């Protein structure tokens, strides 16, 4: 038994006792269950397992600290209404906002941040990390780190564009259908049903096999596949607004469709629509990543996270984590957006009751 193991258990048990003494039941339960799990893990996995636990706990702590700091930062720089809203944000949500913020910076200032160009060959294939290349080289000897940074711009940019297109189409159609009703509503609804009854990835593959792979085609295909989903939600949200008496009053006043959408429906649907944008972005982002991973998305030499996983996949069998890094980059952003969306949905549902 060395000092690390001793210190590990002392700290855990000491902290749980403190929590118990101050009657912090959830914290105590959490700490003590970690202690129990550690006993088992320590026996099976030895010191290494405990070390892993420590690292994980430390990174969660670090993430929590950063999120807390970032939330305070946001509260300090924002206006009164936003402040009140931000104070209710759980740490997961501010963690999400922090990650989104970081990715945005990375994407916008990619050429400044990345030490090398995205297609620049500077070393041998699969060179290990050194002082030049933070994360080593890929299968062609390009700097992994630079490509990840550029990937933020390419992958996220494409997903944003596609989501935006799907959103504009779906939301407009949804609100029009809600206001117009009748055959237009029926037609749009049935069309959406049909498109949605083909699984999205399969539909994308079918269309890609026909139109080939280029950026415009990708954006259009994704927009066509996801617009019906946005349509459905917008139709439902707008449907709830349309039955309100103020819409009837406006209709009876003789207002036109455009006025109804702009002045009456849109202001009352923004909250769920923003949350939906986040959700759709996640779906689109994962779909595009999947297509890239299959070699049917953004084409080389453009840096793209999904393709990077595919290109470096062989490294996995040598126990290297390199291909996991771009995959983790995808997961991290999706998690971040989902955290924020989850909070927004919780807020909007909590306010109703």
């Amino acid at each position, binding site marked *: 038994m060395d000092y690390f193991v001793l210190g590990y258990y002392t700290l855990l048990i000491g902290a749980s006792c403190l929590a118990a003494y101050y009657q912090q039941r959830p914290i105590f339960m959490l700490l003590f269950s970690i202690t129990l799990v550690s006993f088992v893990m320590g026996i099976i996995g030895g010191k290494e397992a405990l070390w892993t636990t420590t690292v994980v706990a430390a990174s969660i702590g670090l993430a929590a600290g950063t999120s807390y700091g970032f939330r305070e930062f946001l509260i300090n720089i924002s206006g009164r209404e936003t402040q009140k809203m931000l*104070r*209710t944000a759980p740490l997961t949500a501010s963690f999400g906002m922090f990650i989104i913020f970081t990715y945005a910076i990375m994407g916008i200032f990619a050429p400044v941040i990345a030490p090398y160009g995205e297609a620049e060959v500077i070393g041998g294939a699969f060179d290990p990390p050194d002082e030049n290349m933070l994360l080593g080289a890929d299968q062609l000897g390009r700097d992994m780190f630079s490509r990840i940074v550029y990937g933020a711009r390419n992958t996220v940019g494409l997903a944003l564009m596609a989501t935006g297109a799907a959103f504009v189409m779906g939301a407009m159609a949804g609100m029009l259908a809600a206001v117009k009703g009748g055959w237009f509503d029926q037609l749009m609804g049935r069309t959406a049903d049909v498109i949605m009854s083909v699984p999205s990835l399969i539909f994308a593959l079918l269309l890609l096999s026909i139109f080939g792979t280029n950026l415009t085609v990708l954006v259009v295909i994704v927009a066509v596949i996801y617009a019906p989903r946005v349509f459905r939600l917008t139709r439902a949200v707008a449907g709830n607004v349309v039955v*309100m*008496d*103020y819409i*009837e*009053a406006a*209709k*009876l*006043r*003789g*207002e036109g469709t455009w006025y109804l959408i702009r*002045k*009456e429906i849109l*202001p*009352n649907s923004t909250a769920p629509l923003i949350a939906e944008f986040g959700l759709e972005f996640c779906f689109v982002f994962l779909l595009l990543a999947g297509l890239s991973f299959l070699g049917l998305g953004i084409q080389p030499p453009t840096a793209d996270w999904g393709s990077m996983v595919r290109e470096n996949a062989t490294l996995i069998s040598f126990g290297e984590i390199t291909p996991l890094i771009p995959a983790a980059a995808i997961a991290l952003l999706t998690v971040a957006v989902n955290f924020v969306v989850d909070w927004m949905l919780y807020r909007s549902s909590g306010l109703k*009751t």
Partner: protein
Amino acid sequence: MTEKKEILLKIRDLRIEGYSDEKWIEIVHGVDLTLRRGEVMGLIGESGAGKSTIGLAAMGFARDGCRISGGSVEFDGLELTTTAEEDLRALRGNRIAYVAQSAAASFNPAHKLIDQHTEAPVYYRIRKRMEAQEDAMELYERLRLPNPREIGFRYPHQVSGGQLQRAMTAMAMACRPDLIIFDEPTTALDVTTQIEVLAAIRDIVDQFNTAAIYITHDLAVVAQMADTIKVLLKGNEVEEAPTAEMLENPKEEYTKSLWAVRSFKRPQKPRPTSEEPVVSVQNVDAAYGPVKVLDDVSFDVYSGMTVAVVGESGSGKSTTARVITGLLPPTTGRVLFKGEELPPNYRSRTKDQLRQAQMIYQMADTALNPKVQIHEIIGRPAQFYGGLKGAALKSRIDELLDLIELEPAKYFHRYPPELSGGQKQRIGIARALAAEPTFIICDEVTSALDQLVAEGILKLLDRLQKELNLAYMFITHDLATVRSIADEVVVMKQGKVVEQGPKDVMFTPPHHPYTDLLLSSVPEMDPNWLTTLLEERGVDNIGEAADK
């Protein structure tokens, strides 16, 4: 008052908090209550008075997001606030039972009525399953449910609302509890259905000598049911007194104002002889798909006069309004406006035709766009029809706000959610006035409001009618409102006009049988009203009369 019975429920300094905006806020501020065995206490108050919360607290229960934060609730010597949840549970359904407002939602759709009825007595081992079923049928019979031996084997959605409410009362009686909490049991029902449920509840509580807390916002109802009345306002007790005393001689100002509400009455105006009607509905039939909802409806509305259209839910009164506004084109018949036929669909009407007929809605919450400022809500019709802009528009908005007795400077930039219910309804009126109409449809405009506020709205509407010579079509199910504001009355039932005429004629006998049923079913303040009425009608045919 000869002998004091044993005290069953003793609540002292009860405080309850509710969780909103991330903090706990006290909503009941120290209420006392004493209930003796076999007594019925009426809890009365407007929405937000804390009636239901107190009722549930009497069972040691707080809804999610509420908690009992102080005081004591003593039931038959047992202190409920400190009793363990398990022991509290053993009281509920057994010694204290609950009857909810909406029976349709409170019965589980997946089980037969009788299975839900027998659940508690079987669980508490008070009766065996078969005995409990037998007992249920007997209770159904006592509550005068039709086919008492068979009705329990139906599912909730197969039974009508009034019957469900009685079945729920039977269920509450299953274990012969010492105390029943009735939480607005007749609020969701029509007046004619309400009578039978009230009568059934009163009888059964009497027969088993059960103590009850009867929660309602309707004074006349509580007058029939309760021995003592407690008046609540915003989580505080206003006063408590035996029913007769409370009705005759209320002490507090607030209570007096509640009692005085129905006093507003304006003189009836005669129908002008030479003039053409503003709106004339002629032989209108209408249908939703294959279902016919209006059958040969005709009536006229003259300028400066109020026509009240009365009926229970499903009578077609709101549909008539939809036909007049053009939202639902009639299948046959026509609507004339100042002698000119209106296009059946609102889309084909001219801007001027749309302007002349305006509407005020029941729910001010849904009638005003919550994301638009008051000045825009009121200003839009003036801008849209009158083409007003800039300073002219602003002064018109100020003028309208003055007209509805709201201070322009204060409300100009507010949003609807920042206003009270009555203020919102006033904004709704201002929006209608902004179009400078000649005819306004008022759809149940006061039924969502507390009584005092409703009174204010009625007075305002009356004043505006005199000043602007408006014609009103007043849709309502509340005969008190009809008495106070109408000149002429149209009674509707199942899409047909049953009877129509000037108010004084309509309110003096002889009546059409349905009008008579409707009129006599409206609860009156007199504590003996229900008893007298039941005697007059003969107990046995109440259900029959109402089912027709």
